């Protein structure tokens, strides 16, 4: 937050958020990222108008057709239009990314706050839990949980969400620890404010900035994990046009119909890049010290 305070010096002007937005606009990659993310959201919302075909519509006269003017990304083994399936897949990718990060951030924020604010035994237990969770590869745990719960998109979201909250908890814990001993929190305690009031009114707002950066940077990670789970058959089930599942569908046809597996992969890559650019841009705008290092 010091960085944002520094930016609001006389002559620069505006609220801290205006300054952040101005810095974000100056960062070309962040602008590209923002354009990609907005385009993805619009694609998800207007999928029925953008997709030329119904994503589930089978056409046995056009099986495994290569990309052409009629089918931009070709067709699959059931004659379904790969472009339309990829377009509809945007909906699943964004939904999964946001839902997973929502679960991760709520769990992480609650545990991180409790750990950092109350300290002592609460901190010791939660830190130990984080150590334990960090020992198990997130993807491995998510796979095992998704397998135990039995596939499907909602189980997959839950499995990834409960496996991947540790980074959020560590972030919030660190921020809260840094804020907890500051004089204004001491003052709030001295005037007799309750713990919850202090957390909600004074501590939480100061963790918002790094939290936004993490959220933006974790959506693509969640999308990649979800695609991996679906690819392995433990996420979205056929005929759902989820990108990981689409790549799995095309795997068997790789040598003579590469487009089925390659196109959804490109979509994942562009999405992940967009969110990463935007997340990096947010990070640089909120903490200019980091800006020129990477």
């Amino acid at each position, binding site marked *: 937050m010091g960085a944002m305070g520094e930016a609001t010096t006389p002559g620069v002007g505006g609220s801290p958020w205006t300054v952040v937005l101005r810095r974000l606009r100056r960062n070309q990659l962040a602008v590209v990222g923002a354009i990609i993310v907005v385009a993805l959201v619009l694609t998800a919302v207007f999928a029925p108008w953008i997709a030329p075909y119904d994503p589930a519509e089978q056409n046995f006269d056009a099986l495994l057709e290569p990309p052409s003017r009629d089918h931009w990304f070709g067709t699959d083994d059931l004659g379904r239009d790969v472009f339309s399936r990829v377009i509809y897949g945007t909906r699943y990718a964004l939904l999964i990314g946001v839902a997973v990060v929502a679960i991760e951030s709520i769990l992480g924020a609650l545990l991180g706050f409790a750990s950092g604010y109350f300290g002592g035994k609460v901190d010791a237990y939660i830190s130990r839990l984080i150590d334990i969770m960090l020992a*198990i590869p997130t993807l491995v745990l998510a796979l095992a949980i998704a397998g*135990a719960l039995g596939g499907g998109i909602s189980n997959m979201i839950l499995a990834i969400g409960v496996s991947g909250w540790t980074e959020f908890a560590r972030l919030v814990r660190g921020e809260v620890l840094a804020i907890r001993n500051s004089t204004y929190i001491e003052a709030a305690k001295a005037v007799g404010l309750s713990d919850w009031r202090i957390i909600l009114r004074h501590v939480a707002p100061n963790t918002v900035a790094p939290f936004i950066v993490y959220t933006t940077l974790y959506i693509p990670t969640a999308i990649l994990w979800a695609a991996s789970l679906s690819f392995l058959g433990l996420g979205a089930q056929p005929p759902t046009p989820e990108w990981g599942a689409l790549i799995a569908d095309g795997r068997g046809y790789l040598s003579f119909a590469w487009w089925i597996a390659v196109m959804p992969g490109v979509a994942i890559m562009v999405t992940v890049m967009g969110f990463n650019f935007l997340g990096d841009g947010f990070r640089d705008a909120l903490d200019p010290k980091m800006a020129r290092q990477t």
Partner: protein
Amino acid sequence: MWRYIFKRLVSLIPTVLGVSLIVFSLMHISGDPVRLMYGPNVAQEKVDERRAELGLDDPILVQYARWLFRAVQGDLGKSIRTNDRVTTMIGQRVEATLSLTILALLITLVISIPAGVISAVKPYSVFDNASRVFALFWVSAPNFWLGLIFILIFGVQLGWLPISGRHGPLWSVDGFLSHILPALTLGLPPAALFTRLIRSNMLEVIHEDYIRTARGKGLPETVIVVKHAMRNSLIPVMTLLGLRMPWLFGGAVVTETVFAWPGMGRLMVDSIMKRDYPVVQGAVLFLALLVVLANLLVDVMYAWVDPRIKYD
């Protein structure tokens, strides 16, 4: 040093116990594993009989204590499907996973250290910009998809390398060739990340006073870069290496499935699909142990890279 390693090993016990509790509960969040295995059409008597055989009708704490007691002795139970010992099944596959992850790690370091150093020595040069573009590409692409692209290009189109299976140990010619594509799939995405990290660390270190002093003494630029700057900029890389261990083993699970690799990851995925929980538990526990030990190794290596770090 040995005292530090011993102390760290002892401090790992609660972590490993916690992992074992999570791993053990996995079997129980899915309901009755025997019913799941048999399906809905098998008579309840047969299900009950098998449950009793497996000790699944005892109280949960008793089951955990029994499982843990056996696990400590190296007995992770038997596969529900094949009746093979889980430790034997893991033992047969661990070498394949280790040889794959070690080669992937080597690829990561061999590419990222020189690339990061060159990018920092000549920032914003053609090389630096090219490495930035490559980094963006590798970090954004799902690794199973990259694996498929490698199969398509180097296996199917060019026919240079085998596209599935492990054709022998790493040191044999066929074995080495079969390791290349999966190890690249697993090692290139972290290489991209490490390159950028090493570059930014080097850029910071290069402006330190002691580098200026080294220049002032008239040391050759290579000595300054390799002996003074690089060594110090490798410390944060070690931290990232430790943090990335779970990602490496997690990535191995997916990569092994893409390349039909006979390792732990594929064993785990196959067992999840067949709902063979003793094997899933064993594999997850073993992968977690590998992560914990790899992290310990990274911590010990700190001392080698940075003599300022003292272990008490």
